């Protein structure tokens, strides 16, 4: 089976972020791009499916060309190849444009199953998997906590507001996986070395037949939010509990 896993290259989340330029886009210059940590769960889920059924995982991503290195991590984990849609016209693309481009790349590649994270760690739009389902017109099970595949039937336990649901769906389908759905493997040394020679195909929006129109959303204003006033910090010398009780009494919850 062919499993597509959508991944994103994001500025290293351990480095404080910054909005720059007239369009207030996230600073990517001078910041290392890494595979979104949330995507490791998707890559792991895809590899597990491909290994159990026989097949391969293809990574699909959109972003600047220098972010190809971030895809190598997914290749080192075991994906067979990467497809990177890279186009200056896509800088600052809105969610629908992003999904349209990804869907075009996925459609061209063909798939039995598409796996994504539930949202990216940098942008958090959180609606791309749903858009992919509507664009590709295949059933989607979002917010998966566990997945299993038998023959061509996928059983998914998904998160809801009040608990969980057991969903059943046949391939082809889309599944968005929550963090914690599995334990992502670490790339082995052999995997890391092998990833260097795996193909990463780059393409543009135009080559996928997607015409880019101007964005219908613009950041108009960015203002700092006043930080909360610094409070009192104490070191516990055995009296901290009494101090907390005193605080709770002062604010009248005790």
């Amino acid at each position: 089976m062919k499993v597509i896993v959508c991944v994103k290259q994001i500025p290293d989340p351990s480095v404080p972020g910054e909005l720059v330029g007239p369009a207030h886009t996230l600073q990517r210059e001078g910041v290392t791009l890494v595979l979104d940590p949330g995507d490791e769960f998707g890559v792991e889920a895809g590899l597990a499916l491909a290994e159990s059924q026989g097949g391969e995982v293809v990574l699909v991503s959109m972003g600047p060309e220098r972010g190809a290195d971030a895809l190598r991590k997914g290749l080192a984990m075991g994906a067979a190849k990467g497809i990177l849609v890279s186009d200056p016209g896509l800088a600052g693309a809105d969610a629908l444009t992003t999904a349209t481009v990804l869907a075009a790349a996925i459609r061209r590649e063909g798939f039995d199953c598409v796996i994504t994270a539930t949202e990216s760690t940098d942008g958090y739009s959180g609606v791309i998997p749903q858009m992919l389902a509507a664009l590709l017109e295949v059933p989607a099970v979002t917010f998966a906590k566990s997945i299993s595949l038998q023959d061509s039937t996928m059983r998914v336990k998904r998160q809801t507001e009040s608990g969980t649901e057991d969903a059943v769906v046949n391939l082809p389908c889309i599944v968005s996986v929550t963090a914690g759905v599995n334990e992502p493997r670490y790339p082995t040394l052999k995997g890391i070395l092998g990833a260097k020679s795996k193909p990463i195909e780059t393409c543009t929006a135009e080559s996928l037949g997607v015409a880019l129109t101007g964005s219908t959303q613009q950041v108009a204003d960015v203002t700092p939010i006043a930080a909360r006033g610094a409070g009192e910090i104490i070191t516990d010398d055995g009296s901290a509990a009494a101090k907390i009780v005193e605080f709770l009494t002062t604010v009248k919850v005790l």
Partner: protein
Amino acid sequence: MALNTILVVAEVHESGLHPVTLELLAKARAMGTSVHAVLAAASDGDTLASELGAHGASRVYLAENAELGECVGGFATAFAVRDAVAQCSPDLVLFGQTYHGRDAAGCASVLLQRTVVSNIVDLESEPELRAVSTVFGGTQRVATAVTGPAPALVVVRAKSFESAEPGSGSAEVVRLSLDLPRWVKAGRVAGRADESASGPKLEDAPVVVSGGRGLQDPKNFALLQELAAMLHGAVGASRAVVDAGWVPYAYQVGQTGKTVKPTVYIACGISGAMQHTVGMKGSKYIIAINKDEGAPIFKLADLGVVGDALDILPKLIAEVRSRAN
């Protein structure tokens, strides 16, 4: 920019409307000339429609269909949104940022060929329609102008607006016959499990006692339960421990969990990653207990205690109990 019709996408939760639906209706009434709602429900459509009317919707587009009970996620709702938009041509469509709402918004975006803006915490209509979100853990406020052909599709986080008490209003009900494509009906729900905790709801509790990795073991959440029960509060958790399977997702506070604004938030063994603080920094008072004096949570705390939550919690429980007696 004056807004004419605002369409609120309603969501069912437990046996009634989701709280975020009521919050959106209150905001829509303050912003628009005309407030309509759209609801796709498996049953109880008329009861829910009258509840929407009492909260300010003058018209409810209702798609009631028993087969919706087996549909997975919020995709079917998107088709009801598409049909309602065709009938009332709204300037703005508001979705709640819930699992269901995200499914509905993403799918509706494709059906209507309009992008969506999500994670919104405020809306402005002057000088143009702007949707406000916060970034970098709530340290910066970003106002995004939404231009292009109407409607603007906006996904709003829960607790961004205050809901209003129900009034005497009633809504005209317009029935939609949903024509769902096969892919929306192909998946089905085979079973459901409820994970909601007993006691006050996390998002309504006046006191929230939350735990993170610093509690070291899932069984230590019992300490939080005990303290919360004595303070008439609820227990919350960081994403790290929810992902690790210590407690169900229903406990999660933060970017991908619940937003809480209690009188007092007590963070135990939580470092204060942006992912977490964005969901609790609106609390009136914050108490933080953490072994690491450099933990970012101390930047938010009104009272910060550098110490081991596992030492302090039993003493705190004993002190609170002696006060109560």
